[in-house]
């Protein structure tokens, strides 16, 4: 049976949070065009990718990374739709409702797409 250890979860939490904060601080410190570019650094994806190295090596590491990246590619498509929805809904229904609806939509679409991919 597969189990999750608290230490493994905590390590990933610190790693993911740290990566996002580091990219945000770098973006502000660098400023200008480079800072603007770093504002959209794919920190969560890269942190998740590097975190796979904690458990796997060799061919298993590459196979797991490919699997994660395939899901991430679908995720990026959903994110672009989600950001467009946030932009539209914030203007139409206010930022609180717009953001909440879009995050809910992101979660529902992600689960739906994963379920469809698993079922087919």
């Amino acid at each position, binding site marked *: 049976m597969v189990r999750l250890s608290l230490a493994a979860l905590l390590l990933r939490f610190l790693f993911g949070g740290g*990566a996002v904060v580091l990219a945000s601080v770098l973006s502000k410190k660098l400023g200008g065009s480079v800072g603007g570019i770093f504002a959209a650094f794919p920190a*969560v994806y*890269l942190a998740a990718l590097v975190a796979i190295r904690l458990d796997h090596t060799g061919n298993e590491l590459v196979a797991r990374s490919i699997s994660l990246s395939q*899901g*991430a590619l679908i995720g990026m*498509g959903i994110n672009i739709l989600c950001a*467009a929805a946030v932009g539209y809904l914030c203007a139409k229904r206010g930022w609180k409702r717009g953001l909440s609806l879009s995050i809910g939509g992101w979660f529902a679409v*992600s689960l739906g797409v994963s379920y469809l991919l698993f079922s087919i």
Partner: protein
Amino acid sequence: MTMHTNWKDLLLRFLLGGSAVVLSYAASVLLPWKALGGIFATFPAVMIVAVLMVGWAQGSARASEIARGSVYGMAGCAVCVVAVLYFMKTTGLWWLSLGLGLVCWYLSAFLIYKVRRSIKSS
């Protein structure tokens, strides 16, 4: 006030970024839907915090602009994922794929940034 907002902003980013990586890991270990782990790995934590903070301080119209602008940043991230996936599949070399993915991300993000600026200024 700015310092206080900065710390709140960074704390939110830390919490959402950390949660996304934990969710991605838990989903890939516990669920049979392997794609879900990858999808959670792209949780738009930075965009959500940016919209939240700007919406709070400057209202819905500015929050809407931030969300629309983030679409371009996400396009650059998608290039990074495609590059990592391509190089990982063709070379099987993990570090090389990660490095080339980062190079492709930076080049595409730079190009998108320049195109956006020239469109805005024209």
